């Protein structure tokens, strides 16, 4: 059952939120042992919230557009009184004293937060294998990774535990796992969804976004999330975009730029699905043209300077002084070092060191400043492309889901997973991954639609058309 169906049933009293919640909890209890999508299931919290939704319905009050819909929360979203680990040992024992703005918005919309999902530590990774609490497995094939870093939320939706999930996308962390798990995953325009309460990885790139089984459900959730928040200075002062109403509007006359630079590095089966999607859009009335954006190839290098640089600063606060893990030592500096050595995993340490180096005196201009110039170049390239097309079309990830353990010892191979998703983060633009058939291995392929800043309505409109044209794929749970 999709989110819109659940909400409609709960709003009209056909089903109780409590019943929906119990079903979801039972499914997780029965089947998450092998998937490990959740780090913590919030059974009591979910039940009491569901009861409140039912009371609203019974009392004739509007329970909200997500009435009774179970939602999976990535574990880098702060939840009051509930552990928020970011997949790391270093936050051991920490319970935030506040809810992230998106969590408040979900509650206000009647949603039921079902649990906190697994992730690569501090969102650094593309397979959810960098979690300190063990990997998540891909529900479509449990020998494969779900992608990452929001692998837990993608897997929760793919496994049918929750109709909706929240992730965060810094370089592709929503879209890539969505592609690998065969669900819809969307990254909004930077500033459209409040980051308040999202534990920062790279502040100028991070955005929270929705996972859902369908484009329409993703739009429903996005419309709830896209609100101005005075607690986030980078949050834009705009009204909710009402994307749900355009999901089935079709693509007649829409100019779609098929972008080889977002396809050429991909496996042939993935590339084939993207070309099929382009043909399907053309058949639906879109004007499809090939468009080159060669600057995209520099995105990855710039990203792996900027994101670690910001991370090196954002993660400094995990020093053992105020919260989380503390490993005692003879003085404060030694305690900091012992705590961070014990608390962080290898990938996090690697990126902190990369970022620290890139910002160091004497290297700043050659690395950080240069990467910012490349970022500007990528933004200008997008701008140029969007003078002749309305949206871009490409692959989301270079391959279908890869085996667990396959890339853990090869950071560069892992980083290459983000090659098609990173440009949108650098530019702050919205993009979405929509399932479109399967690869040679029978595993899901995601097609990526990219749109200019704040063009979410157009983005969901095209995504809806891609979904409508996609081959039907039935997955066993």
């Amino acid at each position, binding site marked *: 059952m999709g989110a819109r169906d659940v909400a409609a049933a709960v709003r009209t009293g056909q089903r109780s939120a409590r019943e929906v919640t119990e079903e979801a909890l039972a499914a997780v209890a029965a089947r998450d042992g092998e998937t490990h999508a959740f780090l913590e299931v919030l059974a009591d919290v979910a039940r009491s919230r569901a009861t409140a939704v039912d009371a609203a319905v019974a009392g004739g009050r509007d329970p909200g557009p997500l009435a009774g819909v179970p939602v999976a929360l990535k574990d*880098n*979203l*702060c939840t009051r009184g509930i552990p*928020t680990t*970011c997949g790391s040992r270093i*936050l051991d024992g*920490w319970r*935030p*004293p*506040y809810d*992230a703005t998106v969590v408040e918005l979900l509650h206000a919309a009647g949603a039921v937060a079902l649990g906190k999902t697994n992730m690569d530590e501090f969102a650094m990774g593309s397979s959810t294998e960098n979690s300190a609490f063990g990997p998540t497995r891909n529900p479509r094939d449990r020998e494969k990774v779900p992608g990452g870093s929001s692998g837990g939320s993608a897997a929760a939706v793919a496994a049918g535990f929750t109709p909706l999930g929240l992730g965060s996308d810094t370089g592709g962390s929503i879209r890539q796992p969505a592609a690998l798990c065969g669900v819809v995953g969307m990254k909004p325009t930077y500033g459209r969804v409040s*980051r*308040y*309460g*999202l*534990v*920062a990885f*790279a*502040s*100028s790139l991070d955005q929270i976004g929705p996972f859902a089984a369908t484009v329409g459900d993703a739009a429903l959730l996005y419309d709830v999330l896209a609100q101005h928040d*005075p*607690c*986030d*200075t*980078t949050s834009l002062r705009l009204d909710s975009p009402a994307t749900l109403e355009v999901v089935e509007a079709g693509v007649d006359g829409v100019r779609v730029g098929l972008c080889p630079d977002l396809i050429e590095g991909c496996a042939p089966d993935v590339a084939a699905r993207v070309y099929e999607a382009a043909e399907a859009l053309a058949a639906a009335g879109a004007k499809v043209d090939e468009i080159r954006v060669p600057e995209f190839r520099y995105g990855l290098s710039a990203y792996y300077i900027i994101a670690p*640089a*910001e991370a*090196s*600063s954002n993660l*400094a*606060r995990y*020093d053992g*002084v*105020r*919260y989380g893990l503390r490993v005692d030592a003879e003085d*404060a*500096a030694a305690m*900091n070092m012992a705590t961070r050595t014990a608390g962080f995993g290898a990938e996090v340490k690697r990126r902190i060191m990369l970022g*620290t180096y890139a*910002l*160091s*005196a004497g290297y*700043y201009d050659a690395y*950080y400043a240069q990467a910012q110039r490349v970022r500007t170049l990528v933004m200008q390239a997008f701008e140029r492309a969007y003078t002749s097309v309305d949206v871009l079309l490409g692959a989301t990830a270079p391959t279908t889901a890869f085996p667990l353990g396959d890339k853990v010892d090869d950071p560069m191979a892992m980083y290459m997973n983000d090659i098609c998703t990173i440009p949108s983060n650098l530019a702050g633009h919205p993009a979405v991954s929509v399932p479109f058939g399967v690869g040679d291995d029978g595993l899901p392929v995601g097609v990526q639609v990219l749109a200019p800043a704040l063009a979410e309505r157009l983005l969901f409109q095209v995504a809806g058309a891609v979904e409508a044209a996609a081959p039907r794929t039935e997955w066993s749970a």
Partner: protein
Amino acid sequence: MSSDTVWETVIGLEVHCELATTTKLFCGCRNAFGEEPNTNVCPVCLGLPGSLPVLNAQAVELAMRIGTALHCEIHASSFARKNYFYPDQAKDYQISQYDEPINVGGWLELPGGFRVGVTRAHLEEDTGKLTHVGAGGRINSARHALVDYNRSGVPLVEIVSEPDIRSTAQARAYAAELRGILVATGASDGRLEEGSMRFDANVSVRPGGTDQFGTRCEIKNLNSLRSLGRAIEYEAARQIALIEGGESVTQETRHWDEAAGRTQTMRSKEEANDYRYFPEPDLVPLVPDEEWQRRVRAAMGPMPADRRAILADLVGGSASEAESDQIRAVVDLGLDGLVVDAVLAGAPAQLALARAANELAAEGEPGLALPQSSFVTVLQMEAKGELSATQSKAVLSAAVAAVGSDPRELAREMGFEALGADTLTAAVAEVVAAHPDEWARYVEGDDKLDGFFTGAVMKATSGKANGKEVAAELRRLRG
């Protein structure tokens, strides 16, 4: 260097001013001094994961006032992160303005007319406060430390001077004048003892007459005008001794030990932190538009220099050195409004200035709170001769102590009721009649008897007569 070289000290000051805002720089916590530790804190100023800063408009406004008062240009600016690990630093980075400060390129004129260049005055957040516990409270020997984050995120403006200052006296004058300006703009409460202003001094020495700068040392931890002066004196002497002894000064950061009265190495240039500044991605650029700047300028009152000029005008023409001192004191204490009002109400300017600078200032805080009407009344009584100088001072003191009382009433209660003119004339006539021989000598020109007659009249009137009026009456009778 020969030991008879005349040395010149070159000083630049960095002054951290805590802004007197209602709330902190990036969150809604109260900005208050002296409260229970860790009570004015929230996820933002504790640097909890997921929290984000939101810039306080009042702090920006006060920063613009400071910039305007220091003749700076107000620029579009941005924030950066200064990264370093320290337990009092909630995020292990400080949000500060770095390459794009809000105020650039101004000056401050000392009371003597000397201008000190101001390089910049930028916004940043304060850290928490560490208290080292055990083993005498010293950093190196403490057993553990307590952190109070009430101060974390309190807004600061750091005002950086050019190395234009040439003596300890100038440095102190600069700090004092700056304090006056910060208080006058409403940016600061000026309470040095509460850490509202903290000083770092960059000190170097060079032979007089040369224009190459010597190697400088930065001295930290100066929390009063007195320690500022002492530290600079000590440091200049230390550097001169080094050079005259054939050694050279090493560029480093030094810590002022108030108790020991000397500076000590904190860290050398090589050990200096690499702060890895980069633009703060959580904040958008700060671009105060013309309209906002205009409103800030319009809301500003006169600065201490302007207020001193007004008082000097009232005193008339060129103020004496004593009067200049009184004018400075009156303006520093914020008593100038009282003085001006008193003069407008008819009190003599010199008298109002003197009573404010001496008697009211001596009363401390309560003296500053004396109602204008009371001050004016006392001065008028003294000017009209209803009170002698001594009586006037006593009534002022009583008026300060008894808030809200009528000075005329107080004077009556104290028995200072002035004698009526008739009573005085009669009293003088009686005294003259009682001492015919002395009066004859006095009339013939024996001026030494002036005091004799005045004293006798005073005694006869139990001290209620006004000395000046007695003298006048004696002169009239003498012919």
